[in-house]
């Protein structure tokens, strides 16, 4: 498919939670494969029906071929990320020996709390990305990003995660606080601040948990360096020319500040921002908005009011982003696209937009 849009080798779909990133990533994948390019779509939390459509329901972390029929020359694979499994897999792969691996996997802190570490899903997403990027089995990767509070969280997460793993707290807990048999060292050795800090941590998190953490990080020690290196490599990949960000936004004036903030932030941090897409815009209804009627229960009047509101938001965003930035919109469809046919229709709409660049 020839479009005005220049497809990169890595397309990262970003935006706040709930705006439709996963569906759009799937539609983009379809479009890419139809253009003859072997494509992998990496998704998070697709809806059940979308999972079925992509065939990724059964096993997380494994790529599955999406059946597109003979007319399509490119191949489309899809995968679903499972943070826990990826983490276990990394430990398994990089632990120096089976005993070290078992110490980590069996650690209470790891089992109960490591899964809820901040940024773990994001970190695992980029780990997995790097893995498939290096495997080089696809000409193009489309990366959906995990739902975060703020769209930007995704970019910072790997670094936060690594800095947590490496943080002084850990060094303190492994080296200074605990002697080798896991007993607490005399607090005197820590100096006044250390003493305060230790008694604070002790109060707040308790010794048992600290000991579990100490053990975990000690066992994890040999893996730090690798984690740090890969986080750095993925950061480089994300700012490289190979990578373009595709920013998705919700409709309506209220979403404008967030979208604008994210667009600016991406550029400031040296990432390449491609198109901005406002999703689920209430379509022009062929009616004038009538708030009174809408309040009384006239759904058509309500939709007309929403269409005007969304159109105002879009115009506002266009002004703020400037004429250079490609800005598209997709309408709220009567039904959420969740099988290949309806995804294909969405992809068609998308293709029309992208061609118009």
């Amino acid at each position: 498919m020839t479009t005005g849009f220049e497809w990169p080798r890595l397309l990262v779909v970003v935006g706040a939670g709930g705006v439709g990133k996963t569906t759009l990533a799937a539609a983009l994948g379809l479009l890419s494969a139809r253009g003859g390019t072997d494509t992998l779509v990496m998704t998070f939390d697709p809806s059940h029906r979308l999972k079925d459509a992509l065939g990724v329901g059964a096993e997380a972390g494994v790529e599955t071929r999406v059946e597109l029929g003979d007319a399509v020359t490119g191949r489309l694979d899809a995968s679903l990320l499972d943070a826990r499994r990826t983490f276990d897999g990394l430990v398994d792969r990089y632990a120096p020996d089976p005993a070290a691996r078992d110490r980590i996997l069996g650690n209470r802190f790891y089992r109960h709390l490591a899964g809820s570490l901040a940024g773990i899903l994001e970190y695992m997403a980029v780990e997995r990305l790097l893995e498939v990027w290096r495997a080089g089995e696809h000409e193009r990767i489309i990366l959906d990003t995990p739902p975060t509070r703020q769209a930007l969280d995704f970019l910072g997460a790997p670094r936060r995660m690594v800095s947590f793993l490496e943080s002084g707290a850990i060094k303190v807990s492994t080296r200074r606080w605990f002697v080798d048999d896991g007993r607490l060292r005399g607090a005197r050795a820590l100096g006044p601040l250390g003493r305060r800090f230790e008694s604070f941590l002790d109060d707040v998190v308790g010794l048992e948990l600290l000991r579990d953490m100490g053990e975990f990080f000690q066992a994890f020690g040999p893996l730090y360096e690798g984690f740090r290196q890969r986080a750095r490599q993925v950061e480089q990949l994300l700012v490289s020319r190979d990578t373009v960000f595709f920013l998705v936004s919700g409709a309506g004036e209220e979403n404008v500040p967030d979208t604008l903030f994210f667009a600016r932030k991406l550029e400031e941090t040296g990432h390449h921002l491609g198109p901005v897409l406002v999703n689920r815009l209430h379509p022009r209804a062929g009616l004038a908005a009538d708030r009174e009627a809408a309040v009384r229960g006239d759904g058509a009047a309500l939709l007309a009011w929403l269409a005007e509101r969304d159109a105002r938001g879009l115009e506002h965003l266009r002004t703020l982003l400037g004429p250079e930035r490609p800005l598209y919109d997709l309408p709220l469809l009567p039904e959420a696209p969740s099988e290949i046919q309806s995804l294909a229709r969405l992809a068609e709409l998308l293709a029309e937009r992208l061609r118009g660049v």
Partner: protein
Amino acid sequence: MPAVVKQRISRRPRPLATGLGEKGVLTQLAGRRLLVVTGKGGVGKSAVAATLGTLLARAGRRALVLEVDPRENVHQMLDVPPSGGDIVEAAERLFLQNLQPRQVVDQLVRDRVRIELIARRILASPLYHNFVEGAPVLEEAAILGHCLLLAEGRSRGAPPLDVVVLDAPATGHGVSLLSAPSLVSAAIAAGPLAELTGEVAELIGDTERSAVVVVTQAEEMPVTEALELRTELAARLDRSPELLVVNQLLPGGPPRPRAGESAAAKLWRRRRRLQDHEVGRLAAAWPGRRWELPLLPFDRGPELIEALAAAAAGQDA
């Protein structure tokens, strides 16, 4: 927490509700100390929390809506200036506070380490920063701990309250928030935080004192998540939500198809059919109370909350 109570700007007297219906779920909720309003981001959690706070205050309860979100929204809905961490009086018996989860944990440090200089050094150290950033379960437990202290009048400088309505953070799963206290209290053997999280875990386990309100939209993903939340809540905390709010429904009864109808009429019918299907899915799997609230032609603001409160009161009757 900060001791300041900002005065509301206008003191319009608000009418008292004529009394709550005998069997309404509001009557049931009015007797609890903590309402946790949870759901996927964007479904209207904050709007529902503001609506519940408004209704409870009008029914004579002293209510505080606690928003834990870096983006402040609820103040707009209640027509007051941003809280910025302070407790703001929004109407008679109705208060609002916005907090960053991090502030809650920081406060804990200040309470524990009473020497200001040392507390400041700890708060500024990267060691502490990484530790708190790295373990969101601590923040989640601290948020609920703060609710407990507020509801029981143990938070310095806060007004006396009957009920706290927590507009739960949009990240993570509602269940992870609700099970954080028991997780933390199981991990910590002794000390003030262990005590506090133990108390909070008890509060969450006590269906006489706390309630869970799940907000959703009639769309596939949010409905599926709401159902999962229900299942997990039963499995992990052995309780079921007191109220399900299906928000942002299009009006019922779209006209039958006819030649020359507007695109809007057609979209209305198709979207509403989809919503009916999702509401049906919920109804089949969700015993218990449910409110269906309309999608309204108002931007975020007091008009929206007024209209939602009227709709909710109507549903509850």
